[in-house]
């Protein structure tokens, strides 16, 4: 397992990689919710696509 004088460099690397990957996942998830909410608002105000497909079809 992890030992020795350089363990802190290894732990920092893995912690940073975990944080960056989590930030990417959360950012993409929040963006998806935001776009769907905007589409829902537009549909509610009567603006729809020519195809008639709405946010429920996504």
């Amino acid at each position, binding site marked *: *397992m*992890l*030992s*020795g*004088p*350089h*363990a802190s*460099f*290894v732990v*920092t*690397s*893995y912690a*940073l*990689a975990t944080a*960056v*990957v989590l*930030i*990417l*996942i959360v*950012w*993409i*998830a929040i*963006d*998806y919710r935001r*776009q*769907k909410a*905007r*589409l829902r608002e*537009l549909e509610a*105000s009567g*603006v*729809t*696509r020519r*195809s008639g*497909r709405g946010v429920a079809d*996504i």
Partner: protein
Amino acid sequence: MTLIDLANPTRFLSLTARILPWLAAATAILLLVGLYQAAMAPDDYQQGATVKIMFIHVPNAWLAMFVWGVMSLAALGTLVWRHPLADVAAKAAAPIGAAFTFLALVTGALWGRPMWGTYWEWDARLTSVLIMFLMYLGLIALWRAVEDPSRAARAAAILTLVGALNLPIIKFSVDWWNTLHQPASVLRMGGPSLDRTFLIPLLVMAVAFSLLFVTLHLAAMRNEILRRRVRSLQMMQASRRSA
């Protein structure tokens, strides 16, 4: 379903909605297996425990270049074939590629301090990767700065293809110049020079990070398609109000 069918954003949304949960599950499982193997790998006789940094540094460095390659293909799709999803693919990939490049640079620095005695050295490999990171940021800024998506797409595609010239420089910098960064030890003539004890966890992590990229990229492409639908509906709403 053929590749041509995927050119249709609606079909793309429908297909990716079905495959994304499976891709996410496969990514999570493979990442856990890779992390377990990385934790169990022995210390290297020269590098000690810092060899474990390689299991995240190398996949991120590979993906930093691979994502730019994907964006370059998408740039050709925008400029030559005017594929409807080409710019969507490139724009969605850029922040993910920038994140991988950032991780490659930082984990490389964290490995370099105990092994080389310095976090940073202006050698050809490190500098060319830093240039690629700055170009990622430049591309993201360009997409945000130009309001008209088609104009932004063409400008970004040209900048992406110019940036692709950096890919062979990054790959061969360790052969062309005398660098502190060691030469290739996996993708090289004559096969990998790594022992299987380190090679297997490294390859598992590389596949796991590649799957992570595919999963995040498809999800980000879906968001970009939705963002463009929102924009077109908002324009439709604005033109109705002004009529």
